[in-house]
Every structure is written in structure tokens, then in C-alpha cells.
């Protein structure tokens, strides 16, 4: 199995929320991408936003500012 590192995973309760985050991040040049929810994360939606752990602050600040809905924030060992 490939080597894993600790990464940031943000979960959502609906696909619409996940897609809203992707749209916002792409439009504002923010890092990350959508992935299938890893088993360590409890989430309603099968999509999660993955980014480097170092990007946590910048992402959460932007979400807060824009009133973007998300479910939970996790640090998960992922490849």
C-alpha cells in the first residue's frame, strides 16, 4: 500500500453542500479536491473535500467568511 500522510478532510451532509464548496474553491483558487469519504470519517454525504493539513486555516476562514455549510473537519491518514 502507498505511504500515507495526515491530511485535512472536510465532510458534508449533502452533495449540494459538497458541490458548493468545490465551486467556491475553484472560483477562488483555494486548494483541495473532492474525494470519496474515507472510512474514518462519519458523514452523510459520500463526497468529502481533501486538502493538505497546512491549508486548514485558510480554508476554514474562507468558509466561515462566506457562510459555507460543511459538516465536520477531520485529520486523516491518507495516501
Amino acid at each position, binding site marked *: 500500500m502507498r505511504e500515507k500522510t495526515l491530511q485535512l478532510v472536510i465532510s458534508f451532509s449533502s*452533495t*449540494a453542500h459538497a458541490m458548493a464548496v*468545490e*465551486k467556491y474553491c475553484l472560483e477562488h483558487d483555494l486548494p483541495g479536491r473532492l474525494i470519496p469519504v474515507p472510512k474514518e470519517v462519519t458523514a*452523510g454525504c459520500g463526497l468529502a473535500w481533501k486538502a493538505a493539513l497546512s491549508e486548514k486555516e485558510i480554508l476554514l476562514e474562507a468558509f466561515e467568511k462566506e457562510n459555507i455549510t460543511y459538516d465536520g473537519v477531520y485529520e486523516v491518514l491518507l495516501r
Partner: protein
Amino acid sequence: MYFDNAATTRTKPQCVIDAVCDAMTSMGNASRGAHGSALSASRVVYHTRAKLAEMFHCKRPDHVILTMNATESLNIAIRGTIAPGSHVITTDMEHNSVLRPLYLLEKEKDVTLSFVRADKGGNVKPEQFEELITPQTKAIVCTHASNLTGNVVDIEAVGAICKKHGLLFIVDASQTTGVLPIDMEKMNIDILCFTGHKGLMGPQGTGGMCIREGVEVEVFKCGGSGVHSYDKEQPRDYPTRLEAGTLNGHGIAGLYAALNYIEEVGISAIEQKENSLAMRFYEGIRHIDGIRIYSDMKAKQHTGVVALNIRDYDSAMVADALSEDYDMATRAGAHCAPLMHQALGTTEQGAVRFSFSWFNTEEEVDAAIAAIRELAEE
């Protein structure tokens, strides 16, 4: 020549056709996985919600529910919000997609109905709604424009009455989306129901409803959602609450292209063109002997619909002659609007409906005028 755009716009922008074809060769199932094909579908679906929310001033894209058509949206809205024993106000101008769900509630849930009566010109006035309000009144369900005459209801004034009396306001915008400006906030609309294949110029099998924040619409079908899969109940979050099963992703891709097309052209340009075609037709036929026109063409706002009859001729016969002898598509008969025909006194004769679209031309209108003149002289 196609003059039945109030039924469906037959000519679609080429970008709509291309988008559907592209989607059918590339799109997976929206909200079902994180691979590229599924995500491309999820993106199109979400971007469509966002575009519709922007167009109708709905604050939340996730409160834009995608359905098959306006009829489905109206059924979901009416059956999902109106409690047993409530009193509901509606109008003579409604299509059966409003009337029949309400009649069913009347039969099954002891809901009582009051109708704002249309005058002989086929119009209703906002103050008539207020006169019908009782302590039991819970909602007003109202069309934005008649599918038979194109007459427009002053939705902003009716919305203000709903706000004043704390009533739920459900609007059927089947005939006006993409043609007249709609602002849910300004018009105080709680649930806006629309179809994708008429003024929005998208494919058939697309439609939707925009739900104001805080308005609860109950689940009407359950099933796969791609989210919360271990829950026994349908998830409560919008849009999932009302969207069990695979969406019409290919059609929605076409609708998205149509919305972009409309944005580029501008709704006011569309409104202006359809109005000018309808006015040209009206001016061309109004003085012909034996013509009776039912549309209120002198109103401040109007859609591109002109309903008429020639003498006492059966409307079906006139529409058939237009089709057979002139290759012109119009709609005769009842138009699923029984109370409006009663108000206009046309239940027996029906009416011949011409409805123009963005893609009709002045030359076509002139040909239609000539055809009506010939038929009236027969």
C-alpha cells in the same frame, strides 16, 4: 411554422442540443460517487441549481429542487405543505396542474377552497384575494400568467397580501420563467414552481421548484439519495429530501446550457421580442370581421400568447385548418384551463391559442395574420 410555445418551445438553442449530446457521452450519475464521470454530473446539477437560484433570487442553491416538470413541482409543493382542514385560495386562471392537486386535497384531507373569480377579460385583481381570506386560510396558490390568454397576475401585490396575513405563497410560473423577471424576495414567493421546456428553452423532463429558507415541504417519495445511506428515512436536507432516485442528468445538462443562453441574451430582450410579436399579431387581426380576442393585450405586462376565435367556428376546426392548409401549429380546445374557459364563456367553442417564442419571426407572424384573415373570410 410553430406557434404552440406555451405548450413547449419546439426550437431550442443549438447549445442545448449539444449539451445533452455531450452529457450522454460523458456524464455519470450525480451524487453517486467521486470519480470523474459522477463528479461531472454533480457539477452540472449543482451549477444548474446555482444558476436557477440566481435567476429567481432564491437565496440558497440547495433549496432549488430539480423535478420532471411544473406539474410534479406543484404536486410536491401543494401536497407537501397544506395540512388537513386548511383553507386555500386559488384563482380561475389556474391550469389543472394546480386545480387537480387542490381538488384531491379537498376530497382526501377536508381542505376547503376559494376561487378568485376572473372577470370577462380573464383578469383577477390582487384585492380579490384579500376579500377571501378567513381565519382558516393557510395558503394562496396562484399562477403568474394564464396559459390560455397570457394575462399576467400581479404576483408582487398578491405576495404582499400573503406576507401581511402570514400565508404560504405558492406560484406556478410555468408560463413566465425565462420570459418575465421573477424575484422571489421582492414578490414574497415561498415556493416557485416551474418547468424547463417552455420559456427556459430546455429539454422536456426538466423542471423544478425554489423553496424559501424556513419553508418545510414534506417528503413525497423515498429512495436512493447517495447520502446518509444507512438511515431508514429520507434525509431531511434539501434538495435530497425531495429528490430520491437518479435525476434527469442529461436533460439538466441541456437546461443548464439553456439558462446560460438566456443569461447571455437577457430576459428583458426575450420579453420585448415575444411581446412585440404578439402585439404585431394582435394588431394584424383585431380588425378582421368575426375575430374575437381573449388575451388582454392592453395590459402593462403580457406573455407572448394570443387566444382567439373566429365567429362561432369550432376552435378545433380552425386549428386543424391552420395545421393542414397552412402548416401552422396552434393549440385548440380547453388548454387544461377549465375555469378560465368558463370565465371567458368558451367552454363549448374552446379557443385557438397562438403562442410566440424567442425564435419566431415577424415574417411568420405576418403569415399567421394572412391565414387568419383568409379563414375569417371563408
